[in-house]
């Protein structure tokens, strides 16, 4: 027994020293690939299948990186962590279905918009709710925590005297499943994702559309410390013009025509002021 205690003491100490030694040293060198943060539970934009990152944002980001001639690696994080991680420069680029908002533009710098979404109200297939009744009168509405839909709902609906309750989820998939078993009455989600859920055979339908023309874009840390915003903008234009973008979109959402790039560029975003980095002919006057 003495032997056991002694060897326990010894092995534990050795293991601790070895672990602390090895795991704490993340060496940073100039050749390191850029880290692209994604929320990989957000199909069709970014998800993981059989251990591989997939999705529109993933493939497009890879195509842009090829255009730019840089190496990238993807890092999955929960959506609410992505912007803090970008601010803290734990990741270099944020590439998820990220909606451009005024608030976010204060913390991070956006590329030119590469997509535009409108939100839809999802209800169960057999539901008799319509777009108005689904978001009023005691309805419990599911959104993903930290999403632009949550922000929009809080700004436009929850604060007013409409009687609704927001249920915040880690991911939209959970929200949609919760709606199926009756925990919530409806889900507000972007139109692209909604189409994905319907294509996947979920027993849901679109009750109506909320036209918000929300631009989606990539983002880098505020002030563009890595000096990559210009190349990213050029890369986005390049894959759009070469048809690669259309090809990627159609791979994930067959039969859809992507919005033109650059899309609607709100003037509250300072990186959209003329001249836009890398694309000097663009921008708001």
């Amino acid at each position, binding site marked *: 027994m003495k032997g056991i205690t002694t060897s326990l003491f010894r092995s534990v100490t050795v293991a601790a020293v070895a672990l602390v030694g090895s795991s*704490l040293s993340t060496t940073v060198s100039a050749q390191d690939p850029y880290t692209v943060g994604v929320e990989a539970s957000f199909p069709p934009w970014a998800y993981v299948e*059989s251990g591989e990152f997939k999705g529109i944002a993933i493939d497009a980001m890879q195509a842009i990186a090829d255009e730019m001639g840089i190496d990238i690696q993807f890092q999955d*994080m929960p959506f609410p962590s992505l912007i803090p991680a970008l601010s803290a420069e*734990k990741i270099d680029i944020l590439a998820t279905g990220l909606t451009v908002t005024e608030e976010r533009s204060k913390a991070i710098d956006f590329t030119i918009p590469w997509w535009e979404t409108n939100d839809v109200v999802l209800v169960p297939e057999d539901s008799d709710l319509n777009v108005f009744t689904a978001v009023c009168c005691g309805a419990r509405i599911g959104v993903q925590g930290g999403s632009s839909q949550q922000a929009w709902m809080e700004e436009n609906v929850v604060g007013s005297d409409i009687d609704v309750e927001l249920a915040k989820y880690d991911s939209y998939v959970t929200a949609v499943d919760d709606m199926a078993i009756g925990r919530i009455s409806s889900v507000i989600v972007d139109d692209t994702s909604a189409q994905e859920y319907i294509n996947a055979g979920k027993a849901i339908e679109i009750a109506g559309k909320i036209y918000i023309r929300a631009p989606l874009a990539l983002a880098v840390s505020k002030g563009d410390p890595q000096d990559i915003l210009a190349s990213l903008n050029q890369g986005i234009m390049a894959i759009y013009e070469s048809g690669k973008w259309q090809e990627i979109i159609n791979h994930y959402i067959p039969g859809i025509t992507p919005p033109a790039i650059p899309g609607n560029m709100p003037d509250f975003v300072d990186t959209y002021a003329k001249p836009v980095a890398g694309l000097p002919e663009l921008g708001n006057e």
Partner: protein
Amino acid sequence: MDIYDVLIRDFPFLLKGLGVAIVLLAALLVIGFVLGMSICLLQLYGPKTRLLQWPLLLYERVFRGVPIIIMLFIFYYGISGVYDISAFAAAILAMGLRSAAYQSQIFRSAFQSVPAGQMMAARAMGMSKAKAIRHIIFPQAARHAIGPWTNEFSSEIKETSLAYVIGVVELTRQAHYIITSTQGNVLIVFAVVALLYFVLNRAGNSLLYAYERKLAVPGFEK
């Protein structure tokens, strides 16, 4: 392809996630053990000056009082201003330091349950304090510590899933990948994950109970 085929196809990734969870668990428990034991020994046998004892007490209170998710954020984003720490290292540190606070309490009450006469007798025979602790007090305290330590082990297994908030892809997150890429199947996938956690927990507990039986002393009250 139905969910069972996907589960079979992607099972290696669940195992990989389990592996990450196990490494994280082992590392945080080791840090917690070494540091927790040091804190306990300093509290019980170190100099009784406030200069030493107050910081130890403060450490223990803070790390036991702050939710782990907050700690994870503080360690990941906070430390990165000074040192470029990886998410995995930040998780090990945050969870290991917190476990140290809990383990120091487990060890402290285990050491205190060893009668004072044991230390006195060892010292009277000419043992140094360090030798007495190692050869006489520790083996007896270990018996008292294993029960509560097993609880700490079990609760830390569950906590490893929280490391995902700073991007550590462990078992729960791997399960999430399957759920999102197949658009649902929450119940089936998480049932499999729950089973994996259960097996890990049982395996760990059995080892610890075996160690406890080995330390049992005949004729001594249980």
